[in-house]
């Protein structure tokens, strides 16, 4: 029980540190919020007429449709940003200080993930607010908004695990930073920005099997039509899968880091 209490205490402290780090430095927050918001405005304004295409899901507006995609984008960038910050900690030697402390080692990773999850939560709330301000309805009401927020927060945890694993394995911020284009690629090859059935091949087929598509649909459904159990379960399963992959990779990378120093 005391081990659990220690772990919780450490995770909370390190999570708070990682949140403070991000919000104190505008250049870390800006890619997570500014870039996706700019893209949301541009894509909504530019491709908004797409709602008139046959086969487009019934939505109140293209903005309403796009909110989920923007949340996903912000969440993915938060995961990438968390990985970069973790790698910087490794480069600066801060993680060595943590490794030398009498705390459970994996709590160090969990602390970083807690910070990333908090950023995901912030991103979800930000875009919900943007949507409401610019006239989008949340069809699922408060429960729908809460579900969307919970799924994005959990996704941030999942993606953050992969970012942390890469940081631990490489020990280099520039390696993690170099993955930023990959984030965009993975998002474009999902249904984040347009209905999967209206995408062009081969993007359509890839999106069909992309786990991010399941998560996006799970987040989108409560916004555009209301809570739907099957979409929600699919999203949860996809998130759970990524969490497991992320945790396994992180644990292995942590062992590697402890071995090589």
């Amino acid at each position, binding site marked *: 029980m005391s081990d659990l209490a220690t772990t919780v205490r450490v995770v909370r402290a390190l999570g708070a540190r990682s949140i403070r780090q991000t919000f104190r430095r505008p250049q870390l927050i800006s890619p997570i919020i500014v870039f996706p918001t700019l893209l949301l405005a*541009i894509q909504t304004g530019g*491709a908004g*007429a*797409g709602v008139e295409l046959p086969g487009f899901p019934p939505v109140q507006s293209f903005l309403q449709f796009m909110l989920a995609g923007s949340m996903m984008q912000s969440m993915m960038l938060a995961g990438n940003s968390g990985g970069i910050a973790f790698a910087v900690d490794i480069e600066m030697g801060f993680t060595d200080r943590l490794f030398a402390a009498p705390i459970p080692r994996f709590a160090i990773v969990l602390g970083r993930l807690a910070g990333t999850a908090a950023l995901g939560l912030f991103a979800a709330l930000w875009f919900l607010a943007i949507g409401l301000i610019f006239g989008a309805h949340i069809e699922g009401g408060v429960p729908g908004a809460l579900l969307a927020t919970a799924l994005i927060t959990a996704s941030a945890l999942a993606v953050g695990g992969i970012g942390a694993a890469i940081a631990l394995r490489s020990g280099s911020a520039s390696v993690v930073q170099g993955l930023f284009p990959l984030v965009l690629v993975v998002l*474009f090859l999902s249904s984040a*920005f347009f209905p999967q059935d*209206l995408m062009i091949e081969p993007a359509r087929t890839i999106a069909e099997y992309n786990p991010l598509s399941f998560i996006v649909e799970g987040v989108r459904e409560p916004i555009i039509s209301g809570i739907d159990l099957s979409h929600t379960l699919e999203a949860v399963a996809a998130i759970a899968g990524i969490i497991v992959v992320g945790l396994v990779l992180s644990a292995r990378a942590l062992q590697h880091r402890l071995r090589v120093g």
Partner: protein
Amino acid sequence: MEATASPTWRSNLATILALMARAKNELVRVPGAAIPGVLAPTIFFLGLNGVFGALTQLRGFETDSYESFIVPVSMLQGAGFTGAAAGVNLARDYEQGWVDRLLVSPAPRWVLLAGNVLAASARALIPATFVLAIAFALGARWPGLDGLLVCYLMVAATAAAAACWGSMLALHFKSQSAAPLMQAGMMGLVLLTPAYAPLALLQPWLEDVASVNPLTEVVEAARQGFVGAVTWSETWPGLVALTGLLLILGALALREMRRTNV
């Protein structure tokens, strides 16, 4: 030997060419340095094409090939990115003291700026050509030689304008931390146009913004060969817009260069 006489046009040209040659070193001597500049517009092109390709089914779309419609935008995006990167490089040069070496020489300030700007302009042709090759592979329409030349001219001039913008910020802030502003500024300018769809199909607010955005004329001029015929009436507004942007941003950048000693 002392030469307090004004520099000649020959020496100014030699200085510009020497600075352009130096700028090329990063591409040629650093493995992989060209990749980010090529990767970003390529990802956007392929991503946007895959995601929004069905928009051509809408009434009012000038073409049924979204590759043809969007490729000029991606080429211009690459130009904006390359120009902004020139600004980031200048900021780095400033931080490392290299700019002092240039400023302490008798070369006119506009010559020093021109070297940086023209290098970006030339460099932008690389990602532009790469994206174009991919677009053709996916079936984009051949724009004709005239359409191609107009498009490349728009790309080179946009990169020059972006380099002026980036240089201005670099010399004002004297720090690479201004990089996001350089990149975001250009990205916004290129995408707040009929980038994704024709002007009439944009949402009202974006239609209003795009109508006053000088880059709209540049996008339309670059795109014309890919979606139809190349005409002078579609070309000259783009030339005027870019000339205006170059004059304004160039003047601002030169002002900042002259004020580095304040």
